[in-house]
């Protein structure tokens, strides 16, 4: 009977103990859930705050852009004023002076300035209109950003309220749970005291001795010494005696150097005497009494016939081209004097230029109505020269 009663108490203790453990884990789970929710709210609040900051920055940028655009508009207005002022100055400067051709020229300048001024003003006004449209669009963007920021702020407030509710709930749960937990712990402890008599003890651990680091031996550097090979000096002891050898050869052949020299001098002297004894040439008498006649003959004798013929032909050609150029009031020589000996191009390339009579003749013969029109404005000489240049370049 007695034994059976103890078993009942143990069963009851078991039931209470299980209940206490279940209650603890349930409450722990609830607290964990609340913490998770709080974390989620914190994250959501952080992201909403970031979003608000981004929108606020974008709105600030828009505001700055509008300020810039307004400054631009001011500058454009200033430009319009300047253009109009310049035009007024031109009108003042050119309308007072001169007569005839000068007056016509100045009228043209004033008219051209007016057209420029009108164009510039129109351009500026178009730019102002464009900027004003842009400002309006950006203002709309600012309104949109402001609305989004307001919505985000309101959402943020709501989230914060919810968060504070959960925080309060969590505090309440923690407070309540601390007293409940004590009771539950008492129940489980009592059960454990009755049930268990002995307790396990934890094992001891001995710390391992620290490993000794292997000592590194310093590397020994080997020193090498190079030995230079010794050079052996050679000496040439032989000496040539050229003079001695030559003397030996003379002795063998029976040649006498002094005697040879003497004979050569005598022979030279003999030849001089022979030439001295010859009669002198008579001075030539000139057959030309007139010196100009002589120079003409000299010229004729010295000049190559073919070259002269060529010169004559060239002169004829020059005469022909000059007669062709006469209506244009110029000559071949004059045109030639205007040109350089090379044409240079922007690329740095340069080609030699030589205008022949034939080139000019070709150019004169190829004059077109366009050339004649050109001649009226810039003149015939440069028009002809340009034509020669184009022909030489292969453009015509």
């Amino acid at each position, binding site marked *: 009977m007695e034994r059976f009663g103890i078993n009942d108490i143990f069963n009851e203790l078991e039931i209470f103990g299980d209940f206490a453990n279940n209650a603890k884990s349930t409450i722990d789970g609830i607290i964990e859930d609340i913490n998770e929710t709080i974390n989620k709210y914190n994250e959501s609040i952080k992201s909403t705050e970031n979003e608000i900051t981004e929108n606020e920055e974008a709105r600030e940028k828009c505001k700055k852009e509008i300020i810039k655009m307004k400054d631009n508009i001011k500058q454009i207005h200033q430009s319009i004023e300047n253009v109009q002022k310049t035009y007024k100055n031109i009108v003042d*400067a*050119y309308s007072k*002076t*001169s*007569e005839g*051709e*000068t007056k*016509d*020229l100045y009228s*043209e*300048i004033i008219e*051209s300035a007016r057209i420029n001024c009108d164009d510039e003003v129109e351009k500026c006004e178009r730019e102002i209109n464009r900027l004003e449209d842009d400002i309006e669009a950006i203002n709309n963007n600012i309104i949109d950003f402001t609305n989004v920021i307001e919505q985000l702020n309101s959402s943020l407030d709501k989230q914060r309220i919810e968060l504070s509710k959960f925080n309060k709930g969590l505090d309440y749960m923690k407070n309540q749970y601390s007293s409940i937990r004590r009771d539950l712990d008492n129940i489980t402890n009592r059960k454990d005291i009755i049930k268990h008599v002995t307790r396990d003890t934890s094992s001891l651990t001995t710390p391992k001795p620290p490993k000794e680091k292997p000592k590194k031996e310093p590397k020994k550097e080997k020193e090498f010494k190079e030995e230079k090979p010794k050079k052996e000096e050679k000496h040439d002891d032989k000496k040539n005696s050229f003079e001695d050898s030559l003397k030996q050869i003379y002795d063998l052949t029976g040649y006498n150097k002094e005697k040879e020299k003497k004979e050569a001098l005598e022979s030279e002297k003999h030849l001089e005497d022979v030439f001295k004894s010859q009669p002198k040439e008579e001075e030539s008498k000139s057959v030309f009494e007139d010196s100009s006649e002589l120079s003409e003959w000299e010229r004729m004798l010295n000049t190559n016939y073919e070259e002269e013929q060529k010169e004559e032909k060239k002169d004829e050609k020059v005469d022909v081209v000059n007669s062709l150029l006469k209506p244009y009031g110029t000559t071949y020589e004059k045109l030639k*004097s*205007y*040109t*350089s000996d*090379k*044409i*240079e*191009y*922007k*690329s740095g390339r*340069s080609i030699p*230029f030589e205008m022949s009579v034939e080139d000019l003749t070709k150019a004169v013969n190829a004059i077109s109505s366009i050339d004649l029109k050109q001649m009226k*404005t*810039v*003149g*015939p*000489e*440069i028009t002809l*020269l*340009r034509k020669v*240049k184009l022909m030489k370049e292969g453009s015509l």
Partner: protein
Amino acid sequence: MEYLLSFGLTNEDLEKIKSRVDDETYSDLTLFKNIVIKNIEYLKEFGVENYTQVIIKYPEIFLRDEGSFKNIFSKFDREDLINKCMKNVAVIKKMVEFVDNN
């Protein structure tokens, strides 16, 4: 175009001219240098003190016959033209265009 250096232009000015004109005008300026020289000398004698500015800005106007070039200047009031040119060299270009078109 180095001959323009003798009129007081700098190498930098020559580069400016090179960048402003087309290839044909550039080659004309190198080939017909004696025409250009005569016209520049006339402009100088005429009294245009800032003639180098005219060369730099409108080198193509010097590519015309000496007679044709002088004719342009003979049509206008000398003193007034010089004054205007001192203020703005563009007046020379306008003047040339005016004569060519009328």
